């Protein structure tokens, strides 16, 4: 292709992507920059009344956040949700996907629907049911524990148990979606490889380890990244289950941002929380991507 042709093609390319780029600039880049600027001010209800009450405070919001025990609690809780939730969701969804992918399992469509149903069910309705399941005195979970001779646990009322209880709820609610991704990946695993391994005398476990799992590494990476992002952005579940309690032990970073920004109208602090969260998610989501790159480099 000659130079003029390349130039024309390049122009056409820009022209075609322009609407999308414009939308991204208008609805993503601009608000991000705006909230970055907002996070350097003390925008609050007084500034809303009269913009002359707005002070430019530099990095003071960030300094205060780092010194704020509540922010550290929120960050710690969020990391705790990530550490508990991501392995749980990845394992459970992978196990479910393998189960519904097995041709020997009967009623496979029924299993698939049953596993996927929680993902499409309304969050608030399911939260009400779970609150009853986890109830200290009338809950099914404690009833089962009692049957095993264990003492009852105050699931949502004890600061130590509230996060595991909510993680359980989140995992139950969201593993169906990850299962779907795994299921799609499992169906691309070449059947010939599996059969060849079987003829060579490989057992179920050996085939899973050496044939299936290596084939679905990209899907695992994708599920890990999506789950990490979802866990960092946890808000609705603690909001409907505990409202951040007991004693703020289930408050997450996003919950803190909502409180600062929309409940107390401290948009400056709220924007600073948003920026910190953005950086955290970016860093955490890069980890699985990096791990996958390393894995690929080692293989070749």
């Amino acid at each position, binding site marked *: 292709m000659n130079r003029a042709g390349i130039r024309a093609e390049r122009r056409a390319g820009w022209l075609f992507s322009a609407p999308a780029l414009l939308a991204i600039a208008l609805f993503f880049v601009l608000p991000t920059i705006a909230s970055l600027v907002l996070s350097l001010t003390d925008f609050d*209800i*007084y500034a809303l009344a009269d913009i002359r009450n707005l002070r430019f405070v530099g990095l003071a919001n960030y300094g205060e956040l780092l010194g704020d025990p509540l922010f550290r609690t929120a960050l710690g809780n969020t990391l705790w949700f990530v550490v508990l939730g991501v392995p749980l969701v990845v394992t459970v969804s992978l196990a479910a996907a393998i189960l519904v992918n097995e041709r020997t399992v009967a009623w496979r469509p029924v299993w698939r629907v049953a596993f996927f149903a929680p993902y499409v069910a309304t969050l608030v309705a399911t939260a009400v049911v779970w609150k009853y399941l986890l109830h200290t005195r009338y809950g099914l979970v404690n009833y089962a524990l009692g049957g095993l001779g264990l003492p009852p646990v105050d699931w949502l009322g004890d600061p130590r148990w509230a996060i595991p209880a909510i993680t359980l709820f989140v995992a139950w609610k969201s593993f169906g979606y990850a299962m779907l991704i795994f299921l799609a990946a499992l169906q691309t695993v070449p059947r010939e490889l599996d059969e060849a391994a079987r003829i060579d005398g490989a057992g179920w476990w050996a085939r899973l380890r050496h044939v299936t799992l290596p084939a679905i590494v990209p899907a695992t990476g994708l599920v890990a990244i999506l789950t990490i992002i979802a866990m960092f952005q946890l808000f609705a579940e603690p909001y409907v289950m*505990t409202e951040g*309690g*007991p*004693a703020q032990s289930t408050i997450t970073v996003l919950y803190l941002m909502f409180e600062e920004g929309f409940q107390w*109208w401290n948009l400056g602090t709220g924007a600073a929380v948003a920026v910190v969260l953005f950086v955290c998610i970016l860093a955490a989501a890069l980890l699985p991507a990096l791990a996958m790159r390393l894995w690929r480099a080692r293989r070749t």
Partner: protein
Amino acid sequence: MTGGLSRRELIAAGAATAMLGGCGRSDGLNFWAIGNEATALPPILSRIGLTSVDVQPLPWSGAHQKLLTGFAGESLPDFAQVGNSWLAELAALNAIDPVPAGLELGTDHFASVLASNRIGGHLVAVPWYVDTRVQFFRKDIFARAGYETPPLDWAGWKAALTRIRLQSGGETYGVLLPLDEFEHLQTMALSGGAAFLRENGTRGAFSSPEFREVLGFYKSLFDERLAPIVTGTQIANRWAEFARGWFATYSSGPWMIEEMRTRLPAPMQALWGTMPNPGPDGAGAAAPGGSSLVVFSGGRRKRETWDAVRRLLGPAAQLALHRATGDLPARRSVWREADLARDPVVAAFARQLELARPLPEVPEWERVVTAMQVVADRMVRGEYTVRGAAAEMDAQVDDILAKRRWMMEQGRLA
């Protein structure tokens, strides 16, 4: 498509109707009402001849945010129902008009309600209906412990709760004080004469001897297992627990009367009653609550709007609102004329309203009491001593009020 409208025609017709609807709205006054009042209002409005008012209902959970975003987006209506505790915030925004002289009803309002609506010397909102909190108690449980009604002084009240706890063999708690609700500690602090804030509402006064004593009393109720360590979100159904006898008394507002009457089973109806809150030595105080009517400064038809407010405060409209929602009228003359205190359940509210004490009027109030309650919650769970909790509350509240102090120093606040 044959015979019928084409899709394009349908869309055009829809758009035209939407536009007409938009125009139609603009010739009535716009009014934002919240919760039950919004549902009850339309028939009342037509009865008092205010057919030109468009009522837009808001839920309680979203109303506060909606008012602030409405202000930021310059889309506030002509007038609105506003929770009394939000008035300081709206006044700080210069969003509301002061009440004209002709509408000040003076002593026909409850003094504490009027005081909390007066900000910077101006009456900024007309009380519409009032509420406060009283104890809802189980007559049978108190009777079994040898009390006809709960004693009204703290020492006697606590002794009664202890007896109830002992007699039930640990099944029944004396009082329910959900740890995520600041109202209970707030009521006790008002009863104990604590000030909450000092230096013109720019610093916390939680380390004062009065507040520390209240805090110690509050903590002792949990330490002695007279109140369960639970948050409100943990209790699936408060009425069922009350009927089951899980606790003997609980403080709540007039909205609870109707709930009790509809949710409790028939045999329970004779077994509950209301009493004023206990205080250090005799009936205690409570915060004056309820809603007021405000007229926004951005409205264009102020005269007409204030006239609508005047009509909503007429005795007939006040009584109709009470009949429809159970809201307690803001005008004392309406109470007398309709003899509302004849109902023994409502009588406790009448007595408590006379004993109400206004809260500090700072826009940050909701945040202040939320911070107070979070620290109190952690104190009950053993993280702080009473003295340590009071110091922590002061530190957090001083932080919340930092901007207010700066505004004061700059002379930007009256």
